[in-house]
């Protein structure tokens, strides 16, 4: 009986952990990455913005992200993409 309960607990824990990791991975997949698709999406967002401070900021951040991407500095690129997103959603 103890063995049975223990095995159920182990299986349950594995299922829960798997579900959590799967959910986290799915959520991660939903995030904007520093690649061509994300860059194009950002360009489309900026195109739709009215002229103003937010658009200027987003455009500047986008340019810096492109420069970082050209230099293969993906971490800095992602940071500028994040900043651009914040300006777009302001």
């Amino acid at each position, binding site marked *: 009986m103890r063995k049975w309960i223990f095995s159920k607990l182990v299986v349950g824990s594995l299922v829960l952990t798997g579900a959590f990791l799967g959910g986290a991975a799915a959520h991660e997949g939903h995030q904007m990455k520093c690649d061509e*698709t994300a860059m*194009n*999406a950002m360009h*489309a*967002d900026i*195109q*739709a913005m*009215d002229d103003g401070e937010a658009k200027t900021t987003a455009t500047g951040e986008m340019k810096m992200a492109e420069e970082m991407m050209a230099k293969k500095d993906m971490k800095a690129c992602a940071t500028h993409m994040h900043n651009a997103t914040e300006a777009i*959603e302001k």
Partner: protein
Amino acid sequence: MHSAIEFKGGESMPDSGASRSATRWLIGTVAAVALLAAVVATALVYMGSFDVAADKPHSEPVFWLMNTVRDRSVAIRAAGIAVPGDFADAKRIASGAAQYDEMCSLCHLAPGMKRTETSRGLYPRAPELRRKSDLTPAQQFWVVKHGLKMTGMPAWGVTHDDKLLWDIVAFLRKLPELSSSEYQAIVRSSPKTHEEMMEDMNMDNRP
């Protein structure tokens, strides 16, 4: 006789001949250029040169052209529309709010609402209507009623009567002033749900 004809037309004939020749050359050139342009355009179309993918934005000149075509088209067509005078009516605004929440917020979002998967994937992006709009009420009505080609904006006039569409416009005029909680409250205050409004609607009044 022969020489008289030559004499009479002697001064004008050479000019007239040159003029005809120049006209023929001009027509021939225009026709050739038009034919070449048609051939090139046909070749570009059949080669699939224009990328219709919604995740690749237009170049700036194409984006400007599309926007200008859309804005001018809407402005001209909405020019003769008579606008009702009761936009401030609370019932009308609340009715519009319920419809907006049901039909529009997925793409155009609402105060306090984060961007949705749909709003992020549409191209061109649906404008966030909580921000100030440059459109007049008549232009907003026209767009809501007739939709916009190649934007994902449906023609709500196919399924909704003018009264309901004007309710939406009344709400759109109010929307930029609303906070998140005010938006929720005004949606809840609607006398009827969208479904109930659809059931009550009389489409026989549709122009």
